């Protein structure tokens, strides 16, 4: 009320506090809204997280010394390598099969479209474990596989039991399953490419294969990559089913060691868990850079890498510190 009358006509009903600055309002920075609720929530979450970590570390149930003992044991590492091997082959074969199935589904031939549709329908309906167990008993159904004229003479004949090692059965089974899902991921990606791109490529007279490899597919990859990586992460864990076709992958190794040393089953499961976490993390990092690569041209500037973001944050902080020191 110390202000001269008339200075704040419109504020007459809500006079400014006595300490109101005399500077014009426009010259000041807007004060950020205080958010006490956010601080309370943060504190609560931190307490819960601390409790969880504390439990993990101190609960004797986890037997961290046994975890350390098992983590790099040759049995476990061998299992990890089997998991990696199965995953790598199945991911590559599954994607290849998926691309072929998607192309068949999008082709003008009704026969190819129908075959692709039926394949995807069948393998999305059958549980992976059933496919694997079926293949495992496959040699009882077909004793030999031969390459030759259909219904005619054979040129090459394989003995099924020699050809179908456990690894081959696992990779074939998972790839069959995986390509059905990959087909839909790839098809979705191709459909997401603007029709104008197909037209422009056709109008320039680019050869059909070039149109797909250089124009359509690279643009489709932008939406294929996140979806396929999602699929791939499911696949990494899905490979744990190969235990049932007597292949000792990471989970299988932990499981079988657990039945030999029943007291160590919890640390063994933790070993498998941590390894799966590591694998998923590696894939996520690779995904970031692959996505960034295929974002070229789609956005005006590429998103910064974590390293660039860190550097920018550090520069920002030092600049701010310098500014405040100067004041």
């Amino acid at each position: 009320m110390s202000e001269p009358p008339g200075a704040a006509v419109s504020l007459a009903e809500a006079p400014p506090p006595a300490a109101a600055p005399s500077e014009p309002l426009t010259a000041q920075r807007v004060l950020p809204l205080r958010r006490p609720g956010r601080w309370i929530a943060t504190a609560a979450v931190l307490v819960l997280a601390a409790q969880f970590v504390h439990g993990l570390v101190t609960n004797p149930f986890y037997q961290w010394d046994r975890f350390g003992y098992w983590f790099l044991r040759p049995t476990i590492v061998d299992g990890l390598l089997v998991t990696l091997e199965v995953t790598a082959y199945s991911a590559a074969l599954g994607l290849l099969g998926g691309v072929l199935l998607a192309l068949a589904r999008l082709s003008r031939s009704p026969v190819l479209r129908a075959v692709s549709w039926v394949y995807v329908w069948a393998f999305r309906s059958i549980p992976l474990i059933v496919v694997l167990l079926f293949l495992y008993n496959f040699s009882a159904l077909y004793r030999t596989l031969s390459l030759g004229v259909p219904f005619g003479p054979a040129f090459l004949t394989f003995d099924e039991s020699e050809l179908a090692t456990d690894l081959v059965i696992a990779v074939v089974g998972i790839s069959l399953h995986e390509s059905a899902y990959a087909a839909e991921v790839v098809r979705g990606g191709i459909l997401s490419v603007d029709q104008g791109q197909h037209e422009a490529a056709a109008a320039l007279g680019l050869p059909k294969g070039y149109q797909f490899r250089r124009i359509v597919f690279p643009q489709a990859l932008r939406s294929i990559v996140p979806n396929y990586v999602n699929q791939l992460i499911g696949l990494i864990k899905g490979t744990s089913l190969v235990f049932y076709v007597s292949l000792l992958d990471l989970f299988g190794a932990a499981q079988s060691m657990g039945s030999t040393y029943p007291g160590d089953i919890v640390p063994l499961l933790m070993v498998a868990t941590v390894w799966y976490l590591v694998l998923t993390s590696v894939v996520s990092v690779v995904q970031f850079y692959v996505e960034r690569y295929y974002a070229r041209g789609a956005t005006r500037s590429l998103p910064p890498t974590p390293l660039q973001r860190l550097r920018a944050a550090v520069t920002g902080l030092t600049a701010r510190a310098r500014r405040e020191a100067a004041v």
Partner: protein
Amino acid sequence: MSTAVDDHAPATVQVHDVHKWYGTHRVLNGVDLTVRPGEVTVILGPSGSGKSTLLRVVNHLEKPEIGYVSLNGEPIGVRRHAGRLKELGERAILAQRGRIGFVFQNFNLFPHLTVLDNVAAAPVATRRLAKPAALELARDLLARVGLADKATAYPRQLSGGQQQRVAIARALALRPGVILFDEPTSALDPELVGEVLAVIKDLATSGTTLVIVTHEIGFAREIADRVVFMDGGRIVEQGPPSEVLDAPRHERTRDFLSKVL
């Protein structure tokens, strides 16, 4: 290029009694048109009159139900066989399209390739030029449309007018006998229209055969050798701009011009 001189010289385009329909909807109802080498033809007409479809029939992006288009006397997308027209295979059609440039309303540049690679794509993909020669050609063409400094940019980093100029350079990289423009300035902000029209005008004076669908009447008057007015899937009238634009003989032409001018 000695073997293919005819392909790159300004071409004659002839449309022979073309009919096109989608279900029961008739889009083109017997269109006949001859575009002479080096001539600039502007097609006008209300929306839905079939002008864009006609342009897309010329490079066989749309297949006519009846009739055909010929380039220097050679049928496009079809061949004569025992008195009938038979559809050509995809590969042959793609090869023919390499002699016809097409510029889209929405540019349709390849967003994942640099401007330079967009322009060089067709000569490289069709093995007409080795990569270094194609890149050199692309640089020359970009300079011609005033974008020499944008070679390493990606299309989305350019303005609409710049993108359309790149699209024109990309069509020119085919060294086509004719270039078709489908409403090349309709997707542009008004202040960007001029730069694109300037490039097209430059092409017109250099003797390339051009067929342009546009709503820019003033531009048509300025560069067209011939104006074609279409309505209801037919050509209503055609002739030099001084006749069709200034003294139209048909009621529908007059009606259309009174609305757009």
